């Protein structure tokens, strides 16, 4: 699974951080940092994070094995 965030859209709302704290974090300056290829076990969390992003900036892509 690959996580893509459109950084032109992202406005650092941080909602994704509450949904998937293992994947998304805000750094000290309040800007988003994230793991781009998280473990498959985190899929539900990541999909929830994509749902709750107010800017709908997060895309979850399937990586071909």
């Amino acid at each position, binding site marked *: 699974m690959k996580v893509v965030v459109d950084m032109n859209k992202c*406005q*650092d*709302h*941080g*909602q994704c*951080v*509450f949904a998937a704290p293992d994947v998304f974090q*805000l750094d000290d300056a*309040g800007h988003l940092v994230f793991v781009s290829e998280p473990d498959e076990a985190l899929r*539900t969390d990541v*999909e929830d994070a994509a*749902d*709750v992003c*107010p800017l*709908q900036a997060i*895309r979850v892509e*399937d990586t071909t094995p």
Partner: protein
Amino acid sequence: MTGRIAVAGASMGGLRAAEQLRAAGWAGEITVFGDEPHMPYNRPPLSKEALAGETPFASLALTPRASAADVVWRLNTTVTGARLTERVLELDGGERSGYDGLVVATGTRPRRLRCAGPSGPGSGRHTVRTLDDAHGLREELIPGARVVVIGAGFIGCEVAATAAGLGVAEVTVVDPEPLPMLRPLGAPLARELLRRHELRGVRFALGRGVTGLEGARRISGVLLADGSVLPADVVVEAIGSVPGTGWLEGNGLDLSDGVLTDAHLRVVAHGEAVPEVVAVGDAARFPNARYDAVARRVEHWSIPGDTARCAARSLVAALTGAERDPAPFAPLPTFWSDQHDFRLQSFGAPGLGTADIRILDGDLTGDVVAGYHTADGRLTGVVALGGRGAAALAARHRARLLQQPALTDPAPTPATV
């Protein structure tokens, strides 16, 4: 698993419901009926970035999860009625459509002013709910335009800020309340909100309602209760919303403000839950076990997702005999609003804690976080006002909100508040 779930309303609530039905294990048919011509799209930018022209309208479409790929979308289709005992929907054109399970996701429509005056296309009179509404308004927010926004709630304040940013000649917000967003925010933040808007060129006519609209075919002015007239080329009505639940009439439901549900989002008919009919999003009036037993509608963007998850589980359990999640629905409401260069970010239910508002962080004229408490000192919500950093400040209090006991629990000892 066979059978068919019908979803009425093809916006965020309808989409999230379809996705969560799949997540809850429903493998049967799902058909979504929606009266708009568009696939579900994101509404918040309609009063902000998209209205400002910064985000193209085409980019607002919500991307359905892969699991929802086989959902049938019946757009341009109005649900005109329902026979819940027969499990049948009535569609415009006279078609009847049977279902095994039903999701109510018909949201709200703008409340309209009850006064005569020009109306319809070309009249200069607008509301902002749909993509088409926003398109129409955008075309008229041109340099030289005198804009009057009726209603100082969040949509009115956002539209006023966007219009001011587009360089229209003047923007005035009218409201019978003495401050903008007074009810959700309480006086301290509402007063500061007013100051920030005025500083950025938005005018306010507060403490006075609208009694009439002037003009023949096109708006020329707005008449206020004190007899004064605000000249206007464009009027935006942002005076709240009306739930789109009229089509459910005649089924013994409580439709007094949206459709009443139980703690599992099942609609209630004649005092009893109807297990195969659930409601989500802006149209649902549900109790939140985090607070108390009072059912409320919550028009926050976070609610369609939260309600869809709980409602889908209830519905799939009812249709398949699977075990139902016994936990009552207890979401932490989340809300934001962008106006000019600042953001409001709220967590919890500040409206339940306006008895005692305290500044928790920062100061009112910069980045500030206010805490909302009941008369006996319980924190019900926090609201931040300021730059992007303010939202992060508010988030620091979110964990504490999640740990608060329900309002109906015995009063906590002061040390735990």
